[in-house]
């Protein structure tokens, strides 16, 4: 199982999914109407490392996080 977390202002409970890569996650989240706007401006981290490609393999126990636009300071 892969745990998917939605950080900051995204009002969505974590998911536990049986997926093996980020492309599968993209497909699943794109079906969620409320998530579409977020997907366009969210960065993605796997096990707390930002990733820049969908070709990332996921294995049991991995954690994926979606990071919406930031504004510290």
């Amino acid at each position, binding site marked *: 199982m892969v745990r998917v977390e939605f*950080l*900051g*202002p995204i009002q969505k409970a974590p998911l536990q999914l049986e997926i093996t890569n*980020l492309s599968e*996650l*993209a497909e699943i*989240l*794109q079906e969620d109407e409320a998530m*579409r706007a977020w*997907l*366009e*401006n*969210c*960065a*993605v*981290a796997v096990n*707390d*490392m*930002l*990733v*820049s*490609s*969908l070709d990332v393999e996921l294995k049991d126990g991995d954690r994926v*996080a*979606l*990071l*919406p*636009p*930031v*504004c*510290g*300071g």
Partner: protein
Amino acid sequence: MLHLYDGALDVPKILKAWYEEESQSNYGAYIPFVGTVRSEDGIDGLSFDIYEPILESWFLGWQEKAKAKGAIIKMAHSRGDVMLHESSYIAAVFSPKRRVALEFIDAFVEDFKASAPIWKYDLKEGKRLYALERSTAIAGSGLLSQR
């Protein structure tokens, strides 16, 4: 040297502690940047969420960049609510030389704004409203909207 606090920062205390920590380190320049909540758009204050694991790795990367230039950086940030005219953010660079320090604080603060995993909310009329229009998408965002 990344310090997170619940609520507003005690700026004089932090600036003093950092100055004293490095008082014998032979740095010629110390430049803190202090961010304070401004009164605008009728807000009562700001509120912050922080995702610490990625903030820490981002900060670690900057510590290494500083080290490569003979400098060090320190940072403090608030979690939760910070009211008008209170401060939520301090970043500081110590360096042997002034040019390195001046360039480093600028680059650090700008990348902080663009990349640090911190989310800002306006406190207004009893609500906590995500400040989307003042926020910046992290480089590489949009990955999951690809088909």
